[in-house]
């Protein structure tokens, strides 16, 4: 099947699939960052149970395979009378896993802040929150740009999990198996999806690099 035939037959479906993948990627990424920030605050807190809990959380979600997590959410949770929509299950799975990595990146961003600079801020008479606001956060955020860019790409790749559950409209990966079971899409269907994923990843990478170069801290 040629590209033209494929697009005339499945063009709208492709567009919908692209939108699904982008929508999932963005919402999962935002959720992951929010969760990641909370978990990082816990891990840095002077309150031990919160630290232990957060470390445990990170170990679980950075080590569980996406497929295993999705299967638990979709097929196991109903046994506990918790029934999620397919979309919600995919969204949660694709947010929880990146959230653990997000926290790891933020931790190394915070760790990159020199202890001496925190002491200097304190010596100027800054309170805890002033020190966080003027020294710790700006530096941690600026040194997290590249890892966060990678995280956004990784989140997008994780959203391919959506192809494992019946979603309508399906995502960019799901549509390849859809077309291949409904028509002889062959290599073209694969190539279109691959190109869309890859182009998105490359653009994200370029933008991230540009921002990083602008805000990188000389040490």
């Amino acid at each position, binding site marked *: 099947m040629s590209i033209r035939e494929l697009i005339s037959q499945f063009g709208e479906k492709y567009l919908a699939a692209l939108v699904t993948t982008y929508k999932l990627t963005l919402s999962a990424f935002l959720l992951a960052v929010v969760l990641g920030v909370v978990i990082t605050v816990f891990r*840095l807190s002077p309150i031990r149970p919160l630290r232990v809990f957060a470390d445990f959380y990170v170990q679980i979600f*950075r*080590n569980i395979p996406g497929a295993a997590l999705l299967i638990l959410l979709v097929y196991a949770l109903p046994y506990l009378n918790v029934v999620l929509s397919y979309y919600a299950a995919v969204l949660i799975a694709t947010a929880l896993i990146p959230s653990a990595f997000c926290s790891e990146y933020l931790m190394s961003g915070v760790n990159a802040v020199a202890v001496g600079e925190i002491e200097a801020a304190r010596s100027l008479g800054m309170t805890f929150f002033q020190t966080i606001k003027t020294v710790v956060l700006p530096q941690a955020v600026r040194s997290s740009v590249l890892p966060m860019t990678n995280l956004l790409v990784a989140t997008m790749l994780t*959203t391919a999990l959506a192809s494992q559950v019946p979603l309508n409209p399906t995502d960019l990966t799901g549509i390849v198996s859809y077309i291949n079971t409904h028509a002889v899409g062959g290599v073209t269907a*694969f190539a279109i999806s691959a190109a869309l994923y890859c182009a998105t990843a490359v653009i994200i990478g370029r933008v991230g690099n540009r921002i990083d170069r602008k805000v990188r801290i000389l040490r």
Partner: protein
Amino acid sequence: MKNANSDIRRALYEAPGPRARRRIVIATVLSLAAIAVLAALILRRFYVTGQLDRRYWSLFTSASTWRFLGEGLWGTLKAAAAAGAVAYLFGLALMLLRLSGTRALRWIGAALTELSRGIPTLLFIYFFFLVAPKFGLKLPTFWKIALPVAISASGTVAEVLRSGVNAVPKGQTEAAVSLGMRHSAVFFKIVFPQGFRFVLPALISELVIVLKDTTFAYVVSYADLMQNARVLISNYDALLSVYLVVALIYILINYLLNRLSVFAANRRKRGEAFNE
């Protein structure tokens, strides 16, 4: 990592005074209570839905269950090991392309790396499962999962190796060249081994990603841990307990791989300190 975290924490929160100490104690008690309540609620959920029932868990007391899961795990590990090995090979090839003297080869290397890193593993799996057979490329089931997983990891491996090679000081090359070594010999005998040692921890971590990706083996019906779990589930009608245990096994193995990576990193750091 652990030590660095506690250092920065000590810096963030200076030594507490009496009021801060009191607050920390109160917060500790409250958070412990909150975590206990959360755990109790989850356990209660299991209880009221009958999921704590013996019949869901008794299968784990029989040796045959573990033997069967063990067989599945063996399948997982074989696929992961093969995929990892191929990923390292492909990654090495991609890196060599990117460092080659020919512009076109460099460009191809960069493009292939971007493709590998920018496309989800599942899409590669569908390619070899659905698309490739139509062109007469029929892989054995084992490679239907191992090959796409390897391809998907190879781009990252290439980037990791490249960053290692770039981290080797220029003086090393210059010194070797001045000794009259050939360019390729300098690379393979001097630069690459050092760069490889720099990034060994990252290469081990990459195995975690490979191992996680092999869970898609069910797509191609390869008998891995996940697949054998399914068989257990249909035999015992115990979905929740089996999937939970299997997820824990994956988490544990990946955790151990990560520890191995940290161990390798620490050993390298110690080695450096010793050399200084």
